[in-house]
């Protein structure tokens, strides 16, 4: 089930480079949400390491030519983590980093949930949960039908896996042997509110330990379970996922919701919440970033 040992082709310097990218993605997430006084935090922060690996190493993309037909596709099915994707795209050069301050604003290309008709480089509009797997499967099948060497990646939330469409898609993808389709489940153990129980803050995780691995395996997928904050494990899993064996690939990435910001980690109520100035200072310190010079979010 686990990924193979760290690939020898990825050296320490490369791992450090990607870790620094992930750190900067987190800084931009917090800054943007602070500035917008709106948006989600917990989910984008848990996904940051995987987004860094995808956008800065794994995806075959051309930021200067976002509609390049032979690019790999990425669908953020957990569309409420849009600011994480926007931060990764901005840092990768799709648009200026300063534009992140327009997140969630009227007329912005950076809509609350991804809108492919507004922002070049987005491969699909999402936001209504459960749909990304289907769209990504259509891209993967479309690549096969048009003879293109393209892989389609889709990132789902663990709470999102409660949507029936996820399993409709899981069934159809294995039936069609879509092995150029990679689903990454950001298994951060929390959803917006969650089921009542004796878990942290009185809520239970979306799934029991091991449940996601068992389910995706039962649906005929090749399943890899990793620590979604360990860059070496992320890269190894994504490298394995690129070696098709006739099955679609599911990477169950164990993550921490709110990762990187001490007071957000593991608390469901940081799914979406505005940040106070004093909280921003703590977050920036946690992320190893100098404190902002003044309030209001402008840098």
């Amino acid at each position: 089930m686990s990924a193979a040992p760290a690939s020898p082709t990825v050296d320490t310097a490369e791992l450090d480079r990607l870790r620094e990218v992930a750190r900067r993605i987190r800084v931009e997430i917090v800054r943007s949400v602070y500035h917008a006084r709106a948006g989600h935090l917990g989910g984008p922060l848990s996904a940051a390491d995987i987004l860094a690996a995808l956008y800065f190493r794994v995806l075959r993309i051309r930021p200067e030519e976002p509609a390049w037909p032979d690019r790999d596709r990425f669908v953020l099915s957990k569309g409420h983590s849009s600011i994480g994707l926007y931060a990764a795209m901005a840092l990768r050069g799709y648009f200026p980093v300063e534009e992140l301050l327009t997140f969630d604003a009227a007329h912005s290309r950076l809509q609350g949930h991804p809108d492919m008709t507004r922002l070049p480089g987005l491969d699909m509009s999402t936001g209504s949960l459960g749909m990304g797997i289907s769209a990504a499967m259509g891209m993967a099948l479309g690549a096969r039908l048009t003879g293109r060497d393209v892989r389609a990646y889709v990132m789902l939330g663990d709470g999102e896996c409660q949507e029936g469409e996820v399993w409709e898609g899981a069934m159809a993808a294995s039936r069609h042997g879509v092995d150029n389709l990679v689903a990454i489940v950001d298994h951060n153990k929390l959803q917006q509110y969650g089921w009542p129980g004796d878990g942290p803050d009185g809520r239970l995780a979306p799934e029991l330990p091991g449940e996601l691995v068992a389910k995706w395996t039962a649906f005929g997928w090749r399943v890899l379970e990793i620590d979604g904050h360990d860059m070496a494990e992320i890269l190894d899993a994504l490298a394995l996922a690129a070696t098709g064996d006739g099955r679609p690939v599911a990477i169950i990435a164990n993550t921490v919701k709110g990762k990187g910001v001490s007071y957000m980690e593991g608390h469901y109520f940081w799914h979406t919440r505005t940040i106070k100035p004093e909280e921003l200072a703590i977050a920036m310190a946690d992320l190893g970033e100098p404190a902002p010079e003044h309030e209001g979010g402008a840098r």
Partner: protein
Amino acid sequence: MTLPMGRAMREIFGETVAAIADEDPRVVMLDGDVGSSTRADIFEKAHPDRYLQMGIAEQNMLGVAAGMATMGLIPFISTFVSFAVVRPLDQIRVLIAQTGANVKITPGYAGLFTGRTGKSHIIVDDLAIMRAMPGMVTVAPADDVEADLVLRWAATYEGPCYVRLVRDATARIFDDTYRFAFGKAAVVREGRDVTLISTGTQTPRTVEAAELLAAEGIEAHVVHLGTLKPLDVEGVVAAAERTGRVITVEEHTVIGGLGGAVAEALAEHRPTRVQRIGLQDCYVESGPNDTLLEIYGLSAARVAEQVRTLLETPA
């Protein structure tokens, strides 16, 4: 006058989309396990590599279609209207209408003719739902001739469209000289006493009703609105001005579909009395086609009778 019967629209669906695919390698067929009913099986035989069985999972199927469209393909959807419109409605909204995906939602089994299935399968409000959705084009061909032309047009139209097809053979009003004009009303019978506006396979029955009325000295002007959205406002206004009195006739609930569209347009542009014949805010039971048409007032005789009554009733 009785119109000749056309061929079953579902056979036109399978044959025409297969013929389009002969010429256009971008065309693919996604089937929700009803290919033997919708006759997507005809396409499958012609293009097995471009026929994709998606199983009984319509939400996923519509999403897959959206993804395929971004790869430059032109997916046609094979399922029943109920499972193509309402079941995956949110997928259509978010992934297809909001993105402008080039997906052809072309289900069969619209209206009352569903092979005695009952209310779960007989969707009475598909035109209202699809017409209300921003970014969605809505077309309901009148007969087999127009269905063929509409499917060919749909393949050339860049963007999402809903094409309402019918399972069984229905009367034919168009011949091979007919040319489908997207977004245009078609006058199918001239008259001066009352304007009847119809859509889909109700139009031939409305023409037959007009002939029954003619025998009693009432000359109806009959207009077919093959395209419900975008609506030919000019055509509707001209049709209303012709007689000063409009009655809409649809195999659909009278709320929000053809009657709604015509009433909206005329209220804004040329206030005219509009009365609506169709399903009166109800669901439909299972039964033989002709029996259902009688029960729900959509046979030629029943339409003629209702028009007569409406005309005799003072405003």
